[in-house]
């Protein structure tokens, strides 16, 4: 009622300021904008959907509770990712071990990558679709097996498309360290990639990757 009449501030930072000043709808909008991003970022750290959602929830709960600590001179996205990075750290500290204990199979129980879903996808032949899913599964296993710091840098850089500079600020190290962690991660992934069956990679798109598998 009358919500339509409100003029919505557009930038994340404006929304955050509106929220600090008491607008709960600004908070809702921020959650709607960032929940998918944060959930995916965390998901790529923990490789378990339910856990990822819990951590994403904790992240936004912290945004809500600590709104007064937000400095409007900084980007909201940096702030919220920083909270998420810390939440992941806390999660792993609690686990005291990296999520080698969480199997990929288990994370599939969410029904996200079921055989059915592959088969009804329709865009590929079932065989191609299966090898594509195989490539995805092996990739998840490979990324999850990276040491936490490398995994963090790799996912922030590749999936969240952040610059080394931004990542450095986020995780609290120098851009040079980010570069070497990313490089180490790529090297480890390349080693796993070499053991990937050729058809799995080529299924990703056309001819790409075949020569790597041979190498």
């Amino acid at each position, binding site marked *: 009622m009358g919500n339509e009449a409100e003029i919505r501030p557009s930038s994340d930072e404006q929304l955050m300021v509106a929220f600090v000043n008491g607008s709960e709808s600004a908070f809702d909008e921020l959650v709607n904008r960032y929940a*998918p991003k944060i959930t*995916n970022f965390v*998901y790529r750290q923990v490789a378990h959907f339910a856990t990822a959602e819990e951590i994403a929830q904790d992240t936004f709960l912290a945004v809500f509770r600590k709104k007064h600590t937000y400095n409007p001179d900084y980007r909201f996205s940096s702030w919220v990712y920083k909270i998420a990075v810390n939440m992941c750290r806390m999660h792993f500290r609690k686990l005291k071990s990296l999520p080698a204990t969480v199997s990929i199979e288990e994370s599939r129980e969410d029904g996200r990558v079921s055989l059915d879903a592959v088969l009804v996808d329709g865009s590929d032949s079932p065989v191609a679709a299966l090898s594509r899913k195989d490539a995805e599964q092996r990739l998840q296993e490979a990324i999850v097996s990276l040491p936490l710091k490398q995994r963090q840098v790799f996912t922030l*850089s590749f999936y969240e498309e952040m610059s080394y500079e931004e990542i450095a600020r986020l995780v609290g190290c120098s851009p040079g360290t980010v*570069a070497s962690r990313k490089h180490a991660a790529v090297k480890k992934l*390349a080693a796993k990639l070499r053991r990937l069956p050729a058809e799995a*990679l080529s299924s*990703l798109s056309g001819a790409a990757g075949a020569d790597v598998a041979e190498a």
Partner: protein
Amino acid sequence: MRCKKVQKMLTGFLDGEASLKNASLIREHLAACEECSRRLSEARKVMHWAGAWQPVESSPAFLTRLKARIRSEAEPKTSILTLWFPRARRVLAGVPAACVIFSAGYFAAVQVLGGRDEPHPGARVAKLDSVQSKGSVAADRADAQRLVLGVQKMKMVFGDKLTESAYAQLNEIQKALAVRGGSDSKDLAVVEGLQKAELLIRQGDYAGARQLLEGVEREHPEHPLSPYVRIAKVLATPQPSPGSDFLNRAYATLLQETVGDPSALYNEVTSIPQQVAQLRDYGWERIVKSADRLNPLNAWNFVERRILGGEAESR
């Protein structure tokens, strides 16, 4: 540049992080060095492979769950009603507005009752008076009963937003309507029973509320308010773990599937524990899709559409 140095910088080079000077040195080297070119293409393949990890979609209920957590932590003494009301709101959103005469007053009242803060207590009372005056022109018992139901619905839909005084005022209106409704003292008895039970639920005395409601049910079976008596009984039952995302979604689905019939709704809600297993078979996707309206804003629009739509249809 030596191969070792170039290879160390290849990832950064691909990420566009190499300085202009380094980038041109690397390009120069790559043009002449087969091994380093092979490493570069390998790194490219890794990136290509990494793109295979498809993003997941966050639950449609994400914001609603978050809000529930925020509320439950902000108000530790909150009653079960507060936790239930988002659900009740969705439930009742689906119940088509039964009474046309009530709708105008309903929305007017909602506008003043909807907010926690009370900028215009005068306006609030004035609007409530208008609801009441519509009651005074109710032609007969059936009209009065519909208004009693409407107030009941309003209490349930907006229960967690009503201040104590607004709530008390609605109770008074409801009683007045029940009396005005005519000769039948049953209406008043049911209304009073329901109101006392609501108070007990607010105070956390679920057992007492259930006992009272069962008494009302026994004495006045088949009363128009009976579905609400039964729903109140559900509200007086300790709910499953609030963290149970699956159940939340399941509820949302069930509630939406049963729109339009509080009795059916009651049956569905009470049989949920038995239905969880069935729901799993029923299809996760569909549940998630149906729960789309868990977004409060959408739910709000849904309330408006259903009730206003219902009004338009019945004209």
